[in-house]
């Protein structure tokens, strides 16, 4: 029975090449685009290597100081002093780590000029993130206590500076005129993980500048990890409360009356949040609403298409329906056949989409457009879209099939 239906489906698909193409193309295109877009979304915002705690992490926003009399505003990341004074002292978080916003430096290794992204970090940074160490280890409190000039590099930098797969631990690398001893090599992460990615990581104590400065402004961002996802909100609230009581600083002529800063989920913490209402912490929700509406709109085109094709496909097969009924197919059996055909076409379209998207993602991951890109297929999205296509397919297939199957045989045969 099934093989017969399969045969007729394939025969119909073969015979109606153009319609087959359109319906497969519709399903395939939509699915591919959704899969690729969600892969990029997840690549940017999902909790991927090495940010396994992202779900219960918050990130410090910029500090914004406003002089309401002149409307002058000063905005920027924070200093180690500020973090230690006001964030590390919070009671709710399990861990508070920090790192500097990425900076570039040129260096020479292996006879080549290398442009490296580097970050200053504290030791907790390494406890929060799940970096894979290819060799050596992370920067620890001990390194800080001894004020050691050490560095952790990623595998790309090791390969470029010391040679491919050459052991680097114990060797020195020259950065900003300083000779730093490599103590660990990590598997790199894509630069889109803005808070954590770099080629080179150094203890923040190696940063030039006055270590006793009490300025709020500096190049640092804090990563604050709650004990559980449930405590994230409390952590945010505690900090909001602290911020209200921070004594304001004055900078010469600039005398702000207001200081704003907060701990935000990742999505809100990066620039996109500002557009969608970071203040209320609803940016991601809004983004999702927009994205889902967009996806639905986007899917409605092939859906309408599919409905259309299905209806005409079934209408034109009334003689087949008449014949099958003459030889004993019940209305129910016929509907079953058309449902199967629909499922088959949708699944073929889905399979094609999977192949194509896997190809696109593979190509992107290997294109070095973004180093360490690790785009993956989100199976939830795949399953949801395939189920949606099936629903559309069924709605558009079952109803006309049901009506056709009710058609008097004599009339069906005549058509």
């Amino acid at each position, binding site marked *: 029975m099934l093989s*017969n239906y399969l045969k*007729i489906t394939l025969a119909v698909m073969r*015979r109606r090449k153009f319609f087959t193409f359109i319906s497969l193309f519709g399903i395939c295109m939509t699915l591919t685009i959704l899969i690729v877009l969600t892969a990029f979304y997840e690549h940017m915002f999902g909790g991927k290597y090495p940010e396994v705690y992202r779900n219960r992490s918050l990130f410090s926003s910029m500090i914004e100081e406003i002089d309401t009399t002149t409307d002058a505003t000063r905005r920027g990341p924070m200093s180690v002093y500020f973090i230690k004074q006001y964030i590390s002292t919070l009671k709710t978080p399990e861990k508070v780590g920090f790192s500097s916003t990425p900076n570039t430096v040129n260096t020479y290794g292996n006879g080549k000029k290398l442009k490296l992204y580097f970050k200053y970090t504290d030791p907790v940074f390494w406890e929060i993130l799940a970096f894979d160490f290819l060799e050596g280890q992370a920067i620890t409190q001990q390194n800080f206590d001894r004020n050691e000039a050490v560095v952790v590099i990623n595998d790309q930098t090791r390969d470029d500076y010391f040679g491919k797969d050459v052991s680097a631990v114990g060797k020195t690398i020259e950065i900003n005129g300083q000779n730093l001893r490599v103590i660990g090599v990590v598997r790199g992460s894509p630069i889109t993980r803005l808070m954590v990615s770099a080629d080179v990581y150094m203890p923040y104590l190696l940063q030039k500048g006055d270590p006793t400065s009490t300025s709020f402004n500096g190049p640092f961002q804090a990563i604050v990890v709650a004990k559980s996802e449930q405590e994230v909100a409390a952590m945010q609230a505690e900090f909001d409360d602290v911020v209200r009581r921070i004594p304001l600083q004055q900078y010469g002529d600039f005398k702000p009356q207001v200081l704003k800063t907060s701990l935000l989920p990742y999505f809100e913490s990066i620039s996109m949040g500002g557009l969608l209402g970071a203040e209320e912490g609803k940016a991601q929700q809004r983004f999702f609403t927009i994205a889902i509406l967009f996806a639905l709109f986007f899917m409605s085109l092939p859906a309408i298409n599919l409905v259309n094709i299905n209806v005409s496909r079934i209408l034109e097969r009334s003689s087949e329906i008449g014949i099958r009924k*003459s*030889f*004993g197919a*019940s209305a129910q059996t016929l509907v079953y056949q058309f449902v199967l055909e629909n499922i088959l076409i949708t699944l073929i379209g889905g399979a094609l989409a999977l192949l194509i998207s896997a190809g696109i993602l593979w190509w992107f991951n290997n294109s070095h457009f973004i180093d360490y890109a690790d785009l993956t297929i989100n199976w939830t999205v795949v399953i949801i879209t395939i189920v949606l296509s099936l629903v559309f397919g069924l709605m558009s297939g079952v109803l006309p099939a049901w009506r056709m199957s009710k058609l008097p045989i*004599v009339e069906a*045969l005549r058509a």
Partner: protein
Amino acid sequence: MLSLQNIEKIYRTDTIETLALQNINLEVAKGEFLSIMGPSGCGKSTLLNIMGLLDAPTGGAVSFENEALTGFSDKKLSQFRNQKIGFIFQSYHLINDLPVLDNVELPLLYRNVSGSERRRLAQEALEKVGLSNRMKHYPSQLSGGQKQRVAIARAIVGRPHLILADEPTGNLDSAMGNEIMEILEQLNRDDQTTIVMVTHDENMAKRTHRLVRLFDGSLVSSNSFYNA
């Protein structure tokens, strides 16, 4: 085996009412080979469709093997058609997207018959009509006579008790028509299959057991031939 009582069929459209059949009383005996003749438009096909449960009469009752078939559900009627009746249409009505063998298997598809058994029975039926060398062909690759033989194979594959043939030779030349007729005669003789056949050909009709004539929706005469 088949009994029609007071059958009436009226086609109603918004503007006109066509009385296609009226006051038809007919008994078909088991093992009989009956032919129906009449001018075009007199209601022969309509009558055959009612006999085969493809169409419902607007009045009267049909009973098959002493079972009254009025008020049967779609499912029950399908089952009945599937198990008891085999159709042969003037215009063949093969599924063009399926090869010959799959076309012949069709009635078995709606029974509990395994794939291999279906295949075996379909091959056997095709052998009977002399087409075992065309199993993988598609209908479009066959001549009219070959198509009609495929249709016969499909009609007999499920060993129905009754075969209904609506002008089975109507589209064929006389030689081909003769061959088809021989197959039907053989089925009737060897397997005691009851056959009702509509024809325009007096010579074909004479080869059957009995001929009924239809005129304007009514039965006008009935001849029996004992030469068969």
